[in-house]
């Protein structure tokens, strides 16, 4: 089937660019699927649930990690239009990518589950969209659910967006109910893109994906001029130029075209093999007679959270390196460099945009590359000024300066929490315990409240989200954004086994939390490390000062009482198994520590529970 949308250089007034802002599970992918179907670009029998989410992990977690986009034909009356649906990543760590995707749009569909109401993440992205003056079309989804309460949530959304409750559209993405009307509204309400067709080409990269067969596929939104194949292009942030091998649109399979004009969205392929050569937010122009001013808003991705990743089996180190090399092709924000830990052996210090980015990366490494990994407790980046005025950037507790320091600065974030109002007290308590400063509080409706805090990022990345969820019976949602840095009274706590520091357990914590961290880690390790033939003291220390101590008593008996004819085979097999276990142990000083002890000690209570399931 060929349509109006198959040809490019569509007049801008016939184009509508929009995205869907929604929380995980609120049905964004289902709605996108339904749009593909209703506009006829995917036939019903070829429909695969959630067509746009291509990665397994995305499919399993029900979240979109990497944005996709699609070009759809739509008719309102006799008028033909082209709709570009730009799918945005749905998580807190990818705020920058979200902002770039929003930049490519003139409108946004605010999609909210009619049984759950708006969540913090959605609210944060909505604010981003409002800042960019996008036209917002509020929509309640899942209205066919028995638990749906559309009147209540329509009022809530109207209050937030500043519209009338009856302006909130109601759809069921699952059944398709209301979706056609929604597309009509999109055409009606969203402004057409504007740009100068005769100016030098300028297109913004809003996503960049590595494909094994084609190399990097770069998604762009053309602002001015035109992008045509077989022309050399230039990346304005670096000045690098590339041959343009292919320019195309997605509907939903990639289709090469003769080029893209003002307001159009599509992809280009240059033959580069690494997404870092095609950076999200960068401006693409023509090499000859190119633009001189880039589009605004470009920023280098900057890791916010660091963690050491180590193979459980040391012989997998080269495999881990290879896997990271491959992942980095598709993940411009991922950084890593080799590091060695006395406790964990050879591994990599990896930088991530946030905790989810860390978790997803780790999960992909384990699943797609069949690796078994230990990750150290995540930490943020500290700026330390020593007494002699030297500035040190610390991304690993091991690099914490030994001597006196005059100032330590740590990153802080603005946190938005949405929760039923009954939990306000518990949430305030939790945030206060995590060094949060209350910035403000708003009732979205009678029963739902928005709390705004400024908190150290370090307090968020460990187990804050789990603690928040468990204290609010899962009802609270959280979002945060960078908010600069603050001077803090931080110390490094070391954990010593028989006097030997175990680097993997060192942590940077606030002075007031040092004792708590030290005692809890020491007692955890006392439970986890098997008894040795000698007594093993476990100490927590700040500098040379011991702040907590536990002792693992020496083992006195390790012998099977009975070993007669029928016991011998069983006993030999048991011995062989124990031997294998001991081979996998790491030796700290003279102390044998099973790998599982490191894993258990490094996992938070809730993630240990997850592992058990």
């Amino acid at each position, binding site marked *: 089937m060929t349509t109006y949308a198959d040809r490019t250089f569509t007049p801008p007034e016939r184009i509508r660019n929009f995205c869907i802002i929604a929380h995980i599970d609120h049905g964004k992918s289902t709605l996108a699927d339904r749009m593909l179907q209703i506009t006829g670009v995917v036939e019903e029998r070829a429909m695969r649930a959630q067509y746009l989410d291509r990665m397994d992990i995305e499919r399993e977690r029900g979240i979109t990690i990497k944005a996709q986009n699609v070009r759809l034909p739509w008719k309102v009356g006799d008028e033909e239009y082209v709709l570009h649906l730009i799918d945005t990543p749905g998580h807190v760590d990818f705020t920058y990518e979200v902002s770039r995707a929003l930049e490519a749009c003139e409108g946004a569909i605010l999609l909210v589950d009619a049984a759950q109401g708006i969540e913090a993440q959605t609210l944060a992205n909505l604010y981003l969209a409002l800042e960019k003056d996008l036209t917002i079309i509020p929509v309640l989804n899942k209205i066919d659910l028995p638990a749906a309460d559309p009147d209540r949530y329509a009022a809530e959304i109207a209050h937030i967006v500043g519209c009338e409750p009856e302006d909130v559209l109601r759809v069921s993405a699952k059944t398709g109910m209301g979706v056609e009307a929604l597309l009509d509204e999109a055409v009606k309400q969203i402004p057409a893109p504007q740009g100068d067709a005769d100016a030098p080409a300028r297109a913004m990269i809003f996503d960049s994906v590595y494909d094994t067969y084609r190399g990097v596929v770069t998604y762009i939104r053309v602002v001015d001029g035109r992008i045509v194949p077989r022309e050399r292009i230039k990346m304005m942030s670096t000045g690098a130029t590339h041959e343009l091998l292919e320019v195309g649109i997605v509907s939903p399979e990639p289709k090469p075209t003769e080029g893209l004009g003002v307001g159009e969205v599509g992809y280009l392929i240059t033959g580069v093999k690494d997404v870092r050569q095609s950076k999200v937010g960068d401006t693409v122009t023509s090499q000859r007679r190119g633009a001189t001013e880039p589009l605004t808003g470009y920023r280098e991705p900057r890791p916010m959270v660091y963690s050491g990743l180590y193979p459980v089996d040391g012989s997998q180190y080269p495999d881990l390196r290879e896997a990271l090399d491959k992942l980095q092709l598709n993940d411009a924000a991922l950084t890593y460099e080799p590091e060695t830990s006395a406790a964990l052996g050879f591994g990599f210090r990896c930088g991530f945009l946030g905790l989810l980015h860390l978790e997803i990366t780790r999960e992909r490494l384990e699943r797609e590359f069949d690796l078994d990994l230990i990750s150290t407790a995540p930490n943020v980046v500290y700026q330390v000024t020593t007494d002699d005025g030297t500035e040190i950037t610390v991304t690993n507790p091991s690099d914490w300066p030994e001597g006196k320091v005059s100032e330590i600065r740590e990153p802080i974030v603005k946190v938005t929490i949405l929760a039923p109002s009954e939990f306000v007290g518990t949430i305030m308590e939790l945030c206060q315990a995590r060094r949060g400063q209350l910035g403000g509080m708003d009732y979205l409706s009678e029963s739902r409240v928005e709390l705004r805090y400024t908190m150290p990022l370090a307090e968020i990345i460990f187990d804050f989200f789990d603690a928040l969820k468990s204290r609010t019976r899962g009802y609270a949602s959280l979002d945060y954004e960078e908010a600069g840095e603050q001077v803090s009274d931080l110390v490094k706590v070391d954990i010593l086994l028989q006097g030997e520091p175990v680097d993997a357990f060192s942590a940077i914590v606030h002075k007031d939390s040092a004792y708590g961290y030290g005692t809890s880690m020491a007692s955890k390790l006392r439970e986890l490390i098997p008894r040795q*033939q000698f007594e093993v003291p476990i100490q927590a220390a700040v500098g040379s000062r011991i702040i907590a101590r536990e002792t693992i*008593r020496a*083992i*006195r*008996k*390790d*012998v*099977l*009482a*009975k*070993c*007669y*004819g*029928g016991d*011998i*085979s069983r*006993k*030999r097999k048991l*011995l*062989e198994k*124990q*031997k294998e276990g*001991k*081979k996998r142990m790491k030796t700290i000083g003279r102390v044998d520590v099973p790998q599982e002890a490191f894993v258990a000690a490094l996992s938070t209570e809730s993630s240990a529970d997850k592992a058990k399931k």
Partner: protein
Amino acid sequence: MHVPFCASRCGYCDFNTYTASELQGSGSSPDTWLEAVRRELTRARATVGDRAVDTVFVGGGTPSLIGAERLGAVLATIRSEFGLAPGAEVTTESNPESTSPEFFAGLVEAGYTRVSLGMQSAAPHVLRILDRRHTPGRAVDAAREARAAGIAHVNLDLIYATPGETTADLRGSVEAVLSAGVDHVSAYSLIVEDGTAMARKVARGELPAPDDDVAAERYELIDDLLSAAGLQWYEVSNWASSAGARCRHNLGYWLDGDWWGVGPGAHSHLAGRRWWNVKHPARYAAALAESADPEADHEVLTPTEQHTERVMLRLRLAEGLDLDLLDAPARAEADRAAAADLLELRGGRAILTRRGRLLADRVVQDLLLASETAPA
């Protein structure tokens, strides 16, 4: 020879044994068992060939439950199929409550030379936790009766570190053992085996788990008291009053001997091949009734496995492990263990110290690991 019958099942026991009610309807009885083991002995003779038997050990279960007559009949079959070597050691286990002077007289007449009695403890509350049915004095009396009947060697079994047992209880038990005048004692720390009634009680929190530190202390007490009375350890859990009082049958297990395990679930070893019979008495008897092999499964030991077993078993003996059996890295590890007061190196042999006896499994593991992980 495995006798798979018990009057009742003790809560800590995971042996292949059955009560009368458990066997009801299966067609198994002491007589069908006797018929089956006789058939197996005939098969064994056909496989092994002409080889006189040095030692016989009837264990269980509760061999005394089938009576002296059937125990005699079993021995008669062994005699007629293989013949007993001169001076052969012939042992049967017995539970104190199912023995009497007449029983022991019957054993002597049949040719038994040794009796091993399951005493476990002299403390009534400990016996209760172990579900043992005999009264505290009965085991000592039985040992005396056995000796009076002319059984040359008598062993008493003790279980220590049972939850609820005090140091004084254990001391009383050892003193009772010594008062019986036996020439051999076996003492085992209580092991809570998976799947037993006791394991379930521990899991439910009704019974505290045995404590290894307590067990270590109790072991030392037992060793002190027995040594002072002239009983020397010759294996981690066994003490004897003289070289002649050691259990030759068990030494066969530890020194790579060949043996044929007769009976349901019994394990055998012949020249590097181990096999074991089907466990249930009814299946076992049915196989033999059809002239089929009652073997459930087997393994043929690789040279590495044979080495592992040698190190694992010989190191448990007072005689120790011949250092020539160890390669250079393992010998270096033996030196290290000696420095840590775990081994004594004497006369070309590695012998566990008392501390080493309590940590024997680690010492064995470290010796074997040293060879495996040494750079080539």
